[in-house]
């Protein structure tokens, strides 16, 4: 059963990889990387159970925190002015 779930996760990772390669925009790639991050967390958790060593979950926990920060970093470092213009341009930003 773990096998079924982990193969589904692998398939989903492969699909995410296709999206990351095809793009077309940078945001799609960040999105795909973010999704693969989530899937890797699940994969590591399930592998821990599969090999009977669930203490591996520490790694999965690190992943959750780290991949989140790196996603944010890509967005903020890439365009640091974010937030200054948007709400006026689009009119529908956060109010």
């Amino acid at each position, binding site marked *: 059963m773990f096998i079924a779930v982990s193969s589904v996760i692998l398939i989903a990772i492969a699909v995410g990889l296709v999206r990351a390669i095809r793009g077309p925009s940078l945001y799609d790639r960040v999105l795909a990387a973010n999704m693969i991050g989530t899937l890797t967390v699940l*994969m590591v958790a399930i592998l821990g159970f599969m090999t009977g060593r669930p203490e591996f979950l520490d790694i999965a926990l690190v992943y959750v*925190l780290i991949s989140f920060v790196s996603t944010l970093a890509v967005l903020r470092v890439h365009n640091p002015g974010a937030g200054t213009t948007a709400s006026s341009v689009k009119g529908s930003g956060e109010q």
Partner: protein
Amino acid sequence: MENLINDVLLGLLMITGFAIVRMKSLLGVTMLTSIYSLLSASLFVVLDAVDVALTEAAIGAGIATVLMVATVALTTDEEKVPRHTPLLPLLVVMATGAALIYGTLDMPHHGDPLAPAHRYVADSYLHDSPVEIGVPNVVTSVLASYRGYDTLGEVTVIFTAAAGVLALLGYRTRGRNIEAAGIRKQVVLRVIAKLFFPLILLFALYVQFHGDYGPGGGFQAGVIFATGFILYALAFGLGTAQRLIPSQLLRILAAAGVLIYAAVGLESMLLGGKFLEYRVLADDPIAGQHLGILLIELGVGITVASVMLIIYYGFVSRRH
């Protein structure tokens, strides 16, 4: 089954590798390398190398991505088209690749119990470590005690990296809060950052001090610690982060970590042992080993965390 997962992950790694070579946008490449490191970390978990997986997760997918994006932000997003033909480099790469593949032919088979790696020191590490050092995680005892010299060298290398970045880039000690204006509007990010900042630091401490028992240790904990502060800097601006933990302090801390490590070595010499021979540090040799490992891991953690932050500050403050 694990072999199958292994093969699939290796296949995905290969595809990612080719895509990285083909892609022209450098930020896209950065995202792909981040995916690459996520995949290889899963591979390490499959191979049961949890400490490596933890390191890859913290460094490859986290800090490396952040620093690469910061670098791209300093330069340009487009890959430069090489002016000369790629024929010669291709030949060199193919010759090297052929030599490497030829080299693998002589390697022992996957999982061969008679492979040299399993026969000499590895055996004695695995057998003697519970008696000599008494730390459940053998990786920690090898890294921090048996190979303490190597690790001291590694920490010094990391420290040198920070010195290099400082010498090349330098930075304004008090970054201007240019982002701050925009950040006020990012309510969601700020609330979440406030919620997560202490949790990440707490988790870093757990990884730091739990390294004797499970995957973890100074390197990983230092990186996680730095990631926490990077999250803070992302949410509240570089200037605010620099008020929280000033660059001057970071420079002192980066040096202090290496010094703590070396001081433990000197202390064990003063107490009549050899350099980095921890068992003389306490009355009981096992307690001495524990104390020594705890202290040097602390030194490693402090240096790694402050070096990562120094590099991050250096790259990001350069932009404005």
